[in-house]
């Protein structure tokens, strides 16, 4: 039942005291004709409504979440405690600089740590999410070329295995997108890359490890090819969880990187956000960063702006409380802990892949990084059971499905990312379920076509939702 179907006229809570000054009213010409139809409920009704909402959700606390490319690791509780301190939540963003020294220190400490992890020289925490970071990074690249008077660079090279946000970010930047094919092993096709590299290329966007779960061993050659043609290299940090403390984007030859604090640095996804998408860059791009930069002198910390800043990416300084959570995480794990996290993320993925490879076809043959892609194509040919059917089958076991139908270069893809925070028992159980589903595909494909069976709803009619959009509650139907 929707919140609008609950409560009764006149019901409500006493949240505010009576107004202690004379009340003002506005003329009819500027007043709304009718009050917004908001709920009128008692506190206990509201409490139950949202408990009901929460019951029909699946969080990382509810069970295994091997959602590829999303890094659904455990979200530590201490992060929530530190981010709730009034010394952060009650600070106005436009307070005098000398009254926000703790916030500035938190920003600076986080920036320094992220620079150390990525091998970059400067960092901004302003972008609110990964895609926002991509847009920011590409604007830095654009500003860099324009500042040198080089205005013909309008192409962004993007591998065909890339996330959809990459080409969309390039388009928002006024660039055309050139798709670079992957070779049969899933690596960037070097010949195709060389052929596309020219003096009209602004840059390359790449994630490494790539979306098939492979570390591209030609990475240095790839970044060299781009630099030789005068372009810059952009690192999509979606898959950073595989390599912290092992290898850094800056050392691979990347000039700009964005990170997802809500993936790699354990901040919760919140059902879709808020995230945080810091952008790091090499020295030659630092002059273009968006605000703010934190600088230190004898008087303390100061907010400054970069000399040739691209401008503001959003109001104020980013999703600050998310940054506090990530800083708490980095402080907890430290240098060794971050490396341990990455190693175990890779170990868990390889462990699962190893146990599943005699039951499912793997898109990559050797050792994978923190995730692996299963190709359900042959199962589908033999039984009619699709990647979607397997995914929906998992729901009946309380396991969140892997990412489906991505990367696009594998047609019936299931992308599995267990993360480092799962126990061996959890992995073993998930492996058993996957194997059971592979068996059922042969024995009872119908059961999977109609899965899930134990969830609060069955498969929704998405076509109907799109063709006859109902996007808000219909009060008239009351």
């Amino acid at each position, binding site marked *: 039942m929707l919140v609008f179907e609950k409560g009764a006229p006149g019901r409500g809570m006493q949240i505010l005291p009576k*107004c202690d000054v004379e009340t003002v009213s506005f003329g009819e010409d500027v007043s709304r004709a009718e009050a917004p139809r908001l709920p009128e409920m008692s506190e206990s009704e509201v*409490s139950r409504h949202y408990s009901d909402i929460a019951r029909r959700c699946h969080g990382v606390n509810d069970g295994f979440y091997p959602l590829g490319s999303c890094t659904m690791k455990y979200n530590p509780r201490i992060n929530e405690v530190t981010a709730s301190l009034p010394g952060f939540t009650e600070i106005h963003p436009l307070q005098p600089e000398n009254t926000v020294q703790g916030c500035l220190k938190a920003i600076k400490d986080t920036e320094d740590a992220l620079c*150390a992890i990525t091998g970059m020289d400067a960092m901004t925490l302003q972008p609110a999410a990964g895609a926002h970071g991509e847009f920011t990074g590409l604007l830095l690249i654009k500003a860099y070329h324009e500042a040198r008077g080089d205005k013909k660079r309008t192409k962004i090279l993007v591998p065909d295995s890339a996330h959809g946000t990459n080409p969309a970010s390039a388009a928002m930047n006024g660039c055309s997108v050139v798709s670079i094919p992957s070779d049969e092993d899933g690596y960037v096709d070097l010949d195709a890359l060389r052929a596309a590299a020219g003096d009209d290329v602004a840059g390359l966007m790449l994630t490494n490890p790539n979306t098939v779960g492979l570390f591209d061993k030609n990475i240095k050659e790839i970044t060299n090819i781009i630099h030789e043609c005068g372009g810059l290299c952009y690192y999509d940090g979606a898959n950073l969880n595989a390599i912290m403390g092992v290898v850094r984007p800056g050392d691979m030859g990347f000039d700009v990187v964005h990170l997802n604090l809500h993936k790699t640095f354990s901040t919760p996804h*919140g059902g879709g956000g808020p995230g945080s998408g810091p952008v790091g860059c090499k020295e030659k791009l630092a002059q273009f960063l968006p605000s703010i930069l934190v600088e230190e002198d004898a008087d303390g910390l100061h907010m400054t702006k970069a000399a040739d800043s691209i401008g503001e990416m959003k109001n104020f300084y980013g999703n600050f409380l998310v940054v506090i959570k990530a800083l708490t995480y980095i402080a907890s794990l430290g240098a060794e802990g971050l490396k341990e996290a990455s190693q175990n993320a890779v170990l868990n993925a390889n462990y699962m892949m*190893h146990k599943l490879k005699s039951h499912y076809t793997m898109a990559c043959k050797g050792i994978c990084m923190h995730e692996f892609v299963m190709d359900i194509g042959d199962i589908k040919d033999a039984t009619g059971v699709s990647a979607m059917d397997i995914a929906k089958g998992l729901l009946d076991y309380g396991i969140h499905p892997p990412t489906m139908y991505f990367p696009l270069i594998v047609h019936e893809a299931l992308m599995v990312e267990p993360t480092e925070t799962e126990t061996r028992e959890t992995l073993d159980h998930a492996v058993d379920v996957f194997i059971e589903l592979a068996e059922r595909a042969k024995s009872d494909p119908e059961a999977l076509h109609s899965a899930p069976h134990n969830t609060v709803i069955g498969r929704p009619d998405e076509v109907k939702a799109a063709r006859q*959009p109902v996007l808000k509650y219909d009060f008239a139907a009351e």
Partner: protein
Amino acid sequence: MGSYVPGTKQEQLAMLSEIGLSSMDDLYVDVPADLKLQNGLDLPEGKSEMEVAAQIKELAKANKVYDTIFRGAGAYRHFIPAMVGNVVNKESLQTAYTPYQAEISQGILQSIFEYQTMICELTGMDVSNASVYDGGTAAAEAVAMCVDRKRKKALVSATVQPSVLEVIKTYAFGSGTEIVVVPEKDGVTDAEALAQMADKETACVLIQSPNYYGTLEDAQKLGEIAHGVGAKYVMSTNPISLGILKTPAEYGADIAIGEGQPLGMPIAFGGPYLGFMASTKAMMRKLPGRIVGETTDDDGRQAFVLTLQAREQHIRREKASSNICSNQALCALTVGVYLTTMGKEGLKEVAVQSASKAHYLAGKLEEAGLKVVNGGEFFHEFVTESDKDSAAVLAALDAEGILGGLPLEGNKILWCCTEVNTKAEMDKVAQIVKEVK
């Protein structure tokens, strides 16, 4: 060292051995040896939970928490009912991913559907998306919705929040959209100038009301000028004001946007906040980001899903209306809980009290020797001017633990009141201001 890796060293070795490897290094065979980090990360050692809690608390203590705030300018301290924190800290809501798997995400999907309904109720618009990052990016995205091949220029009023204008300009640098600022006259948008600037290449006119100075714009007239040249009309507004003031829809807006922070989010040094975006049905398919729709499942039961995804980056890639993927879902949930808890009367009460207190403070400050210079009616923010040095005024307040208004150019100050400010506080402010020479 803190760690969230459950496996013991023995377990890790056993797992390595099971896959035919002997050490963690063996997992990284594809990483060229000369690229590998030789001496580890240049970071401190990890710490226990107790140590980390103390370390971060030290940072928080290095900030000054003002008991009393009379500063808004884009971030507003309202009272946040206890229910809000209680709900948004429920782990199942807080740690869930984007609800792509509808069967196990009905709760989140329903909460977004309820949020969309509430935003439509507040703004009077037909369709709301599931949120964008904040009020600034909402404005930039709104401009992008209006631009097409023939109309590549956006007229933005000088009276919008300055950082919002900056964000619009940054996005426009990417897309190549021309942004022209419509000048202000007496603290409101210069309608005559707008009428001269608007032409057939104008994609949209974007205004904010109450504007940056708190003043209500002549939103009817400005909208008519926009529509007169066939441009879209984008209106940014404070959602609290919509408890009582005329809606963007009533003013004829094609797109309503704004900063959702006042609806239950703490000021939190600038984020996370929430950008709300709602449009007419005609512009529905140009809205960026996620949208939840109602449908039925295979048994005919009511169900909610992410819909109209053909607009989005994961389907359309470079042809998407925006690159947005992660949004501010938990903040949208916050808005839902806030508005449900405050309720129909409660939101109105917040609006009335905020405006009433602002008018009371304005009167008291005039008695104390400042002059209110808004060019028209204001909501809960206003600007004063005087011979008194703003820095001296604000320092005197600061000494009493009060964060005064935001200093603007000259000796102008932008003040804000909300329902949390008491008469006693305001009387005290006036007394302190009066004593500043």
